[in-house]
């Protein structure tokens, strides 16, 4: 704690001679602006402005941009359609329709997972809400559309295809105590399925959607 300081101008009605003459103040002001001018002229690298889009700003690994739906190693979505992100979303921009796997009774997956990018406020609550590490955000902030339908991103636009480069890199992701970035290794492991190799067999039979780099939509 400390006191109160009075910052008012002592004698407000009177300017000093130098201030009244005006020119000395002009020159002292010019000194500031010319210093900035010269510095900007000879040290272009330190310019505070950037030449977007040729030059791009470096954002941190926590940037909250376009979402991405994480996939398991075999290309199926990690999402189990639990509706928690939809519930947590303050902008009500997520729409999920859950599908039940015809053979593996306890396996649920999203048939529809839409995010309306025009409603989204990019708060990251969906990432915080996900219990399966299935939704992250990326550094992609270049979202422009010609109509509203285009702005509703379905699974095909949101899914991460294994092996394909993520545009602008990963952004905001769940919080892990520690360095705050790396998920525990087994978090992404596939759930245990009865029998060795049975899951793969069932998947082949029942066609759980698998996302691959080349396939634009739901493929097998």
């Amino acid at each position: 704690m400390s006191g109160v300081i009075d910052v008012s101008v002592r004698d407000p009605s009177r300017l000093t001679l130098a201030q009244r003459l005006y020119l000395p103040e002009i020159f002292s002001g010019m000194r500031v602006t010319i210093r900035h001018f010269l510095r900007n002229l000879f040290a272009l690298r330190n310019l505070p402005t950037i030449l977007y889009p040729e030059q791009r700003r470096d954002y941190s690994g926590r940037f909250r941009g376009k979402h991405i739906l994480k996939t398991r190693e075999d290309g199926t979505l990690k999402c189990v359609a639990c509706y928690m992100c939809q519930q947590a979303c303050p902008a009500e921009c997520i729409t999920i329709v859950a599908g039940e796997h015809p053979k593996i009774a306890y396996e649920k997956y999203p048939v529809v997972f839409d995010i309306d990018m025009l409603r989204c406020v990019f708060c990251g609550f969906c990432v915080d809400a996900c219990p399966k590490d299935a939704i992250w955000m990326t550094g992609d902030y270049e979202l422009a559309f010609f109509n509203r339908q285009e702005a509703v991103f379905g699974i095909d636009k949101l899914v991460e295809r294994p092996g394909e480069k993520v545009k602008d890199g990963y952004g905001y992701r769940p919080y892990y105590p520690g360095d705050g970035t790396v998920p525990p290794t087994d978090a992404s492991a596939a759930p245990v399925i009865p029998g060795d190799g049975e899951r793969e067999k069932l998947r082949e039979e029942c066609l759980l959607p698998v996302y691959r780099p080349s396939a634009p939509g739901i493929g097998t």
Partner: protein
Amino acid sequence: MTVAEVASLSPAAEKIRSQLSATPLSDRVEVRDLDLPTLEVSPADWPALARHLRDAPESRFDLFLDLGGVDNLKRPGAGTRFEAVVHLLALSRGEHLRVKVLLPDADQPALPSVADVWPAADWFEREAYDLFGFDFPGHPNLRRLLCHDAFVGHALRKDYAPGQRWFFSEADMRMPAWALEPEERGHFETQTLSVGPSHPATHGIIHLVARLDADKIIRAETQIGYLHRCFEKMAETHTWNQVIPFADRLNYVSAMINGVGYVKTVEKMLGVEVPERGVLVRTILSEFSRIMDHCVCIGANLVDIGALTNFWYLYQPREGIYGLLEACCGARLTVSYVRVGGLAIDVPEDFVARCRGLLESIPKFLDDVDRLVTNNRIVRHRLQGTGVVSKEQAIAWGMTGPMLRASGVPYDVRRARPYDFYDRFDWDVPVAQDGDNLARYLVRMEEMRQSLSIIRQALEIFPEKGPVNSSDWHVVLPPKDAVYHDMESLIYHFKLIMEGIRVPAGERYDWIEAANGELGFYAIATGAGGPYRLKVRPPCFPNMAAFEKIIIGGTVSDAVATLGTLNIIAGELDR
């Protein structure tokens, strides 16, 4: 009231009760002891009580902070359906008081206007008229404020369904009646000038209608509400944590401070303690946000009066601070960084180093602006003696923050009721005596330097490691690796996401020092996952209400300079 109840009153409430006992109001005013001393009064006794509270030498509640309605339709155990809740401040003692005016008539709720007691009540009463349909007999200009004139119904009543739409056409647009009739002043005719709603000098969408005698403004009226989205209604339909992104959009120039103010209210209702490291992160980023807010205010103000260069010098610190915020939470403007009970995520490893880097670079820019502006004769002529608000006016108009301090009142919440660790830091409250635009500029410049000093001291006691979140899993989401592997944690996680935090039933008004004054949140909980009612006390609202009075007698160009120093943020003004 029984003896036992009297005995249980806190000293503050007891003091007010004993003061009232000497007046004829004593048996008609109920004194209750909630988070603040609370008086309950009927509409008929309200003006007399108001006068007593303002004038009696031992009470002197001279600053009218806030008036908001409450609709008790769906609140169990409440008496009357409507009540008007007023918050007052006694500047000399820094004490807050709540008055509830209980409105017995549910069909036509009405209470007498107190705009003649506290001029600040004017716009707050219009707001309650608009959003709740309260009638205020005796109000000088009772019409809608935030909603447009074609709006049907009262949005904050519990029986008003959210999501309804009312279409507004140009034919519905209402100009003040006086503005439509020409007025003769002797031989000459006056002129009516409409500035805005969309005008480069209005910084946000604000409509100013001014009557001019040559270049002098002789009458003015402002219309706001163009950015109104009924934040308070949205809060009622969401959970406690979901309100945080909305709170960011109140004063979006210093979004961090709004979030901190909001979650502090909820944390107090819950009785949750945030670890020291979490509190210090909030303090540091809040003070940086304050600097940013002042940079924008001064920079934009100087652009309006023609000193463009300073805008760039002041926006560079802001850019650095945005970078820091983005590194912490992933967004520059609408940060959504705080959560009830802590923060969304711990700060990055280089947090302290980045803060120290900013502490190095920011003063240079402030010095440059100082050199360019403070003693410049043109700036002096534009700012000195214009937009003058005297000390008495500033208090009567309900101003807080730099506006009040520039008029010579050293009231700062961080000093009057130190929250977090503000009492541990050594800093000064800058005040100025003149109350003009120059005084407000000087106060803001000094406040930025004081904020830098606070941040420097906060970094010194900043613990290198430690939790930023409370460990109460009824409030804070459990760590992710626990959620993935531990059933118990997953259940906590699920309950928090699907149902929200269970805040115990009750009410609370809590306030902090935002960049442009006292930011208060009045929250009512009924034990559900979201707020029953959330009222914001927006600091720039009283400033804007006074604008049409400050500019009388000045020129239009002075009005533009004055609007800049009021620091109006439309997101917070219109909510």
